[in-house]
């Protein structure tokens, strides 16, 4: 017995908001594909294979046309430097961040006294709340000189290592929070049963408790990886802004997709053919697709769509 009045109105009004939330991803995807389409055609496969990003000669009217789309003469929009920098820095960050986060989460669950737990949790939350530019600022002024003076043979601190370390620090709080929650939610009986069988507390945790929550942990690792791939400002401030040169070592300057989208905006705006801007759009699209895939897999790993586990 449905009565007219407030109910249908509320239903439609809230439904419209829900539809907007639902459709946003598709709208963004569609928009970027349409906008970047000329660049996708113009760049072809060179987009993935070429390490050269050059908006072409802007002085003079010479142009080059490929697949029916025109850019400034000499233009080349290859993403290899940025894609490799993105993947390398995020992988390296995860290699550091995953064990660190597991250790911290275990310390918080099993070793921090109950009275101090809120304090430890506050540390994790505050760390997650530090703005990206502040991490970048700290990275520029504290971390980069440290790497340059103490570690790097060339004296250059900007680059892959600095970017990966900053990324690691930024994703640690995300992984600690999720790992802590899934370990805490796991039945204490598993830990106690293992202890009763004569294992040490470390064995009980690493051989009984952690394996029982491995999908939760794997999911949180993937979510953190997705976050690292898309992180912009902090990486931009410490990565060394490499252009047209592939990373060749841990201290070499790199660039990431997200960072180059910011740093190349002004240069792209000077391209009268508009192809540089559209190629940045293609870069944004590539980053979008990569993170969508990583996140979709993460959600599948985390109990197939159930969202009790992780917070992204």
């Amino acid at each position: 017995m449905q009565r007219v009045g407030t109910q249908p109105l509320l239903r439609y009004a809230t439904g419209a908001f829900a539809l907007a939330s639902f459709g946003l991803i598709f709208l963004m995807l569609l928009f970027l594909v349409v906008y970047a389409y000329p660049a996708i055609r113009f760049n072809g496969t060179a987009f993935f294979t070429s390490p050269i990003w050059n908006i072409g000669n802007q002085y003079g009217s010479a142009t080059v046309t490929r697949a029916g789309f025109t850019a400034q003469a000499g233009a080349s929009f290859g993403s290899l430097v940025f894609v490799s920098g993105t993947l390398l820095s995020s992988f390296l960050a995860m290699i550091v961040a995953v064990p660190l986060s597991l250790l911290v989460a275990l310390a918080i669950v099993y070793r921090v006294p109950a009275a101090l737990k809120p304090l430890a949790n506050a540390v994790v939350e505050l760390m997650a709340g530090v703005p990206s530019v502040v991490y970048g600022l700290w990275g520029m002024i504290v971390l980069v000189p440290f790497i340059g003076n103490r570690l790097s043979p060339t004296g250059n601190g900007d680059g892959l290592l600095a970017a990966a370390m900053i990324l690691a620090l930024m994703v640690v709080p995300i992984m600690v929070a999720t790992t802590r929650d899934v370990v805490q939610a796991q039945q204490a009986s598993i830990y106690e049963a293992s202890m009763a069988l004569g294992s040490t507390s470390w064995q009980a945790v690493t051989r009984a408790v952690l394996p029982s929550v491995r999908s939760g942990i794997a999911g949180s690792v993937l979510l953190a990886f997705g976050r690292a791939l898309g992180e912009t400002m902090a990486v931009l401030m410490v990565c060394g802004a490499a252009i047209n040169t592939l990373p060749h070592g841990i201290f070499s300057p790199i660039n990431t997709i997200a960072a180059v989208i910011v740093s190349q905006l002004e240069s792209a705006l000077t391209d009268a053919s508009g192809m540089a801007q559209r190629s940045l759009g293609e870069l944004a699209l590539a980053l979008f697709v990569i993170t969508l895939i990583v996140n979709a897999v993460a959600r599948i790993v985390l109990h197939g769509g159930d969202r009790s586990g992780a917070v992204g």
Partner: protein
Amino acid sequence: MKVRAVTRWTSHFWWAVSIAALGFIIAILLSIFAFVIVHGAPALRPALFTPVTSGVAGGLANAIAGTLLLVSIGLVIAGAVGIGTALWVVEYAPQWAARAVRYMIDVLAGVPSIVVGYFLYVALVEVLGWGFSLVAGALSLAIFVLPYVERSADIALTNVPRELREGSVAMGARQGVTMLSIDLPYAIPGILTGLLVAIGIGLGETAPLIYTAGWSNYLPTLAPTHSPVGYLTYVVWTYISQPFAASHALAYAAATLLMVFVFATNLVARSFVEYRFSGRGGR
């Protein structure tokens, strides 16, 4: 017995390593705090808050006003859409639709902010021709924080006790009335917590604003379009790269203000959570 002693020692060793790891991240956090405050505190003079940025120096009035304006408008948009979505998902949606919307919201939470920024740059700044503007900037923040707002409202509404709802319906209240007079008030603390978290995130965002709000040395004009807006994170990013002590001081001052704003909202949100759901752990 020898093996046993070794395993025991191994266990102690690894627990010591885990506590050292916790100590390490605490040290890093303290280092960041100390670094920002030591450099930023001396620059926090009253003269900082009234003038606007000019050239490589000046004050932060335009950036503070711009940040507060962008975050407020972004929050109103994200609040309306996020809470509305949560209400529909919890109160009206069939199971499959609720799952689909929640899934897309979760996916949205993983979209890099720079992608949101570039999308809005193309859609609003270029195609609609709004230029760098207040509305474009506020929308970029709104999209980025929407998942946090929706999720906390969703959880808060889902946790409304069945008996309360059923009582209301049994008294003859229509669903809409129950929703507005029973469910929403009950869920308010959870919803507010989500909004506070969103403020914290919005305050610290930079990348999408570069593409949408642009930057301005003048106080925000309140014009919705065609007028770029300054914000604090931009000052941190650009002024630290200038070769002048005065601009470095501004960057550090902006970073200090950001930290203070962000942590104030985090702490309020935290105390909210603990007050409301004491004993159930944060979040």
